[in-house]
């Protein structure tokens, strides 16, 4: 176990990840470390001849269209041995600044490779034929399971790791090593050995006959994960070729079997195999629609490193490119770890160890949310004021997520997970630790980026625990037309004529006018198919932007007129008028026991109003007057199925709706 976890966490019993036939039970907390030793800087291992990294943009040459034409080698003394592409624009990869990777983009319409390759005859790159070589490649690919419909059927998606490169006549060899996928129907025709819906490493002795590329038992055990550190290790003395994927050895074979004349080169890209035109592949020369593949770092040595050097180098790459993939995991079922395939960064391990708590713990009734605006109120006298919005994250949002009825083991796991979230490494410059991605509760967004704030644990009885996690979403913006925290597709559907709408349906009316465009709520009791006059701005419209929801019967409306009370010395108190607009209402209203649909509509309304935007609301009898309000605070509790409580605070605004202009991100739906 990492020393930090052992000393900093308040829960005990955290198990180390181990591959030596160790059994884990569901809800065990498991500390996963890639390798318990330290990483090593690649230059500190002798024999370094290739180091392609993305640490800064100086390592690239871009052509006029911004595509990469050269990826410079950062290995000391090998600055001339770079990866190139001087072909047409469409075949060059791009630099993706979001992922900080070299991205080879698949595009069947281009009909050309998208790749980088070493120069002809580059001795270090082609040296795999004759000497000890090893490569460490960090890459990530999109799903290989899509397939591409071409003449004759579906062709699999695949990407090359080692290219046999028989187009390069000076280094021609026999063999192929890559990643390969089959679609879910299993209908791809280019490799019959691949199970439907799978994606795997493929090694083949014949680069031209991928229809049945060899997948031996050990090799096929290595189902692919989408993010990989692949270590390719060739011992020329023993003619042994080993391949490790995320620490798990996927292949140990004789180079004479699969690479009879050695492997020529390292070509990276989307479709860099040398599959030739033949009857087998129905006259299709190449499958250019291989999946997008991104490369983060490539390191090569002209020697066979020791096992410890391999681990240290992989650790270096893991720490650099797999942030927050180590440390605490929760076992999602009972399993026994017998190999490194059970590490959570491998596909098999990811089925047993997880950091996703949504599928492990039931959120229970009583979940609640609180919203309040950060608006700064400036008073102008006479009841007039202005709300200044300090930033795009206008709302403070706090969610209380209930996890009731937890067993002791579940509570232990959840408390440990909660604490581990504070140890995440940052992925951006702004925060010092990364947020947690998890689902909120109805009707709020799934896959929210949240920060835990505190955890309340209450023991009910032996083996019965209730936990409430209070958290916040930090990066929601009121500039997004989709909304703050209610972004469900049912709420952002555009208005369509002739559609049937029901009461409390929410639609987005795409109109260039700030006043007329935006969200509307359908108030009609009877669902009906609408015509043009019944559209949101039609004369017979039953859509509204007003707050039409009726509060509970037991409401209170305090009237607190503003006045001046002067107390002069030696005389009685004097009451004086304080300008106009004396009655500025400050209401607290409740909407209890509301259905899912009405609660959704109310909350979407408030979400859309962002805590400062104005709306009209008709006071209930006996007042029955329409006034302008904004809602700076509201809260919501999910009480039971189809039962929600909502409390709102409305402040009256003495102004006109039409005077307000809001920025809206939508350009076109």
């Amino acid at each position, binding site marked *: 176990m990492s020393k930090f976890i052992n000393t900093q966490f308040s829960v005990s019993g955290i198990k180390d990840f181990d591959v030596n036939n160790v059994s884990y039970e569901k809800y065990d907390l498991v500390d996963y470390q890639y390798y318990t030793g330290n990483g090593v800087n690649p230059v500190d291992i002798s024999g370094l001849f290739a180091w392609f990294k993305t640490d800064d943009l100086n390592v690239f040459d871009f052509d006029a269209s911004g595509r990469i034409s050269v990826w410079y080698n950062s290995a000391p003394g090998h600055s001339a041995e770079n990866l190139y592409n001087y072909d047409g624009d469409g075949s060059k990869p791009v630099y993706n600044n979001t992922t900080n990777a070299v991205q080879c983009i698949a595009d069947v319409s281009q009909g050309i490779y998208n790749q980088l390759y070493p120069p002809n005859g580059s001795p270090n790159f082609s040296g795999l034929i004759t000497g000890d070589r090893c490569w460490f490649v960090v890459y990530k690919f999109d799903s290989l399971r899509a397939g591409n419909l071409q003449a004759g059927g579906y062709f699999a998606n695949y990407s090359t790791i080692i290219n046999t490169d028989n187009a390069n006549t000076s280094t021609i060899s026999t063999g192929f090593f890559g990643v390969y996928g089959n679609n879910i129907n299993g209908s791809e025709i280019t490799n019959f050995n691949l199970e439907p819906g799978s994606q795997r490493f493929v090694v083949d002795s014949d680069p031209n006959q991928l229809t049945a590329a060899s997948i031996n038992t050990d090799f096929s055990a290595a189902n692919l994960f989408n993010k990989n550190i692949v270590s390719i290790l060739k011992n020329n003395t023993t003619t042994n070729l080993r391949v490790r994927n995320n620490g798990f050895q996927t292949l140990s074979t004789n180079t004479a079997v699969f690479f009879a004349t050695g492997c020529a080169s390292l070509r990276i890209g989307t479709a860099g195999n040398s599959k030739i035109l033949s009857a087998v592949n129905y006259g299709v020369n190449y499958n250019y629609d291989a999946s997008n593949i991104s490369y983060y770092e490539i390191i090569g040595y002209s020697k066979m490193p020791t096992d410890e050097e391999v681990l240290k180098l992989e650790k270096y790459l893991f720490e650099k490119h797999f942030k927050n993939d180590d440390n605490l995991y929760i076992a999602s079922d009972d399993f026994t770890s017998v190999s490194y395939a059970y590490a959570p960064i491998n596909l098999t391990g990811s089925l047993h160890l997880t950091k996703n708590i949504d599928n492990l713990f*039931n*959120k*229970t*009734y009583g*979940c609640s949310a609180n919203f309040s605006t950060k608006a700064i109120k400036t008073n102008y006298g006479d009841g007039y004021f202005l709300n200044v919005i300090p930033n795009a994250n206008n709302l403070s949002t706090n969610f209380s997520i209930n996890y*009731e*009825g937890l*067993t*002791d*083991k579940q509570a232990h796991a959840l408390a440990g997970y909660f604490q581990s979230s504070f140890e995440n490494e940052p992925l951006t410059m702004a925060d010092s630790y990364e947020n947690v991605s998890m689902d909120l*509760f*109805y009707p709020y967004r799934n896959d929210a980026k949240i920060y835990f704030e505190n955890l309340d644990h209450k023991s*009910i*009885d*032996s*083996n*019965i625990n209730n936990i409430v996690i209070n958290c916040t979403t930090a990066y929601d913006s009121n500039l997004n037309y989709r909304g703050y925290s209610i972004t469900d597709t049912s709420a952002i559907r555009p208005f369509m004529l002739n559609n049937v709408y029901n009461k409390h349906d929410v639609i987005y009316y795409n109109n260039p006018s700030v006043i007329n465009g935006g969200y509307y709520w359908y108030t009609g009791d009877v669902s009906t198919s609408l015509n043009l006059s019944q559209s949101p701005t039609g004369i017979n419209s039953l859509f509204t932007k007003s707050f039409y929801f*009726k*509060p*509970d*019967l*037991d*409401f209170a409306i305090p009237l607190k007129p503003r006045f001046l009370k002067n107390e002069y010395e030696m005389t009685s108190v004097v009451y004086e008028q304080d300008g106009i607009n004396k009655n500025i209402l400050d209401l607290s209203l409740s909407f*209890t*026991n*509301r*259905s899912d649909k009405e609660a959704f509509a109310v909350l979407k309304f408030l979400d859309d109003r962002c805590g400062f935007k104005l709306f009209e609301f008709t006071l*209930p*009898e006996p007042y029955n007057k329409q006034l302008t309000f904004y809602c700076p605070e509201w809260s919501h509790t*999910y*009480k*039971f*199925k*189809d*039962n929600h409580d909502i409390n709102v605070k409305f402040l009256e605004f003495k102004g006109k709706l039409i005077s307000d202009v809001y920025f809206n991100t939508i350009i076109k739906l």
Partner: protein
Amino acid sequence: MSKFIKYENLDFRINNDVFYSNSVSISLQSNISPVLLSDGSLLRYAPDNTVIGSLSTEFYLTGSLPSYLNTTSTNEDSVNCNFAGIEITKCYLKSLSFKVANFEPVLLSAEFDWYGTINSTNSTTNLSAFSSKRNSQCNNVSHSHHTFLMDVDKVFGFDEIFSFDYSEKVNLLPFFANGEISPFRVAKTNKTKSMSVDGNYFKKINVAQIEGQSVYCDLFLKNYNNTLLNTFNVSGKIESRSLNVSNDGILQSTLSITQRLTLLRNSL
């Protein structure tokens, strides 16, 4: 003319085990609240909680007590109950009790809460055949004849025991995932066992010292053939003791014992 179905023999089953049952009753309780709006209109009746069903039955034990009738065990699994041609799923036991008195068969009472469904069939045509267990000879039913209570620490102080009641109860705590009306877990809390023992005069001199007085007793429930059906035990404290006498009556003393059960968390 109204139609009635008369049951001379009741085919009551738990998890398909047949019980020699005298009676079964079920009821349902909804939890709804009216929602009144500010204009005085009634919006709807909102569900505050799920519909909770109750099932109670009385039966004679004709074999060993099955483990799912151990109220205070750590097992939280539900059972299915069948009777009168219907099946009720997700039943959770919350109490089991019985009284042992001279010359009487022992009738056990069990109460369940249920959160599942009733699968109804035509009860007049789909009655399953009774098994031999249901048509058991009277000698095989739980009976007071050989059933006895052992006061291990000898603190009762009675000269003779007339009868005793045994009861074990739990409070059931259902937990629901958001959007669900069927619980993902029904936990047991406040587990208690209690006994009430009726006897005659005291043989001991210190019977008034009941504060904190520990009691351990074993209860051997047997059938008329002296076959042990189940052993119950209570390891608790004396809760109360009384002595009653009236004209033309007999002197009768009562002792009640209670035990609160809890689970050592490190044993989980």
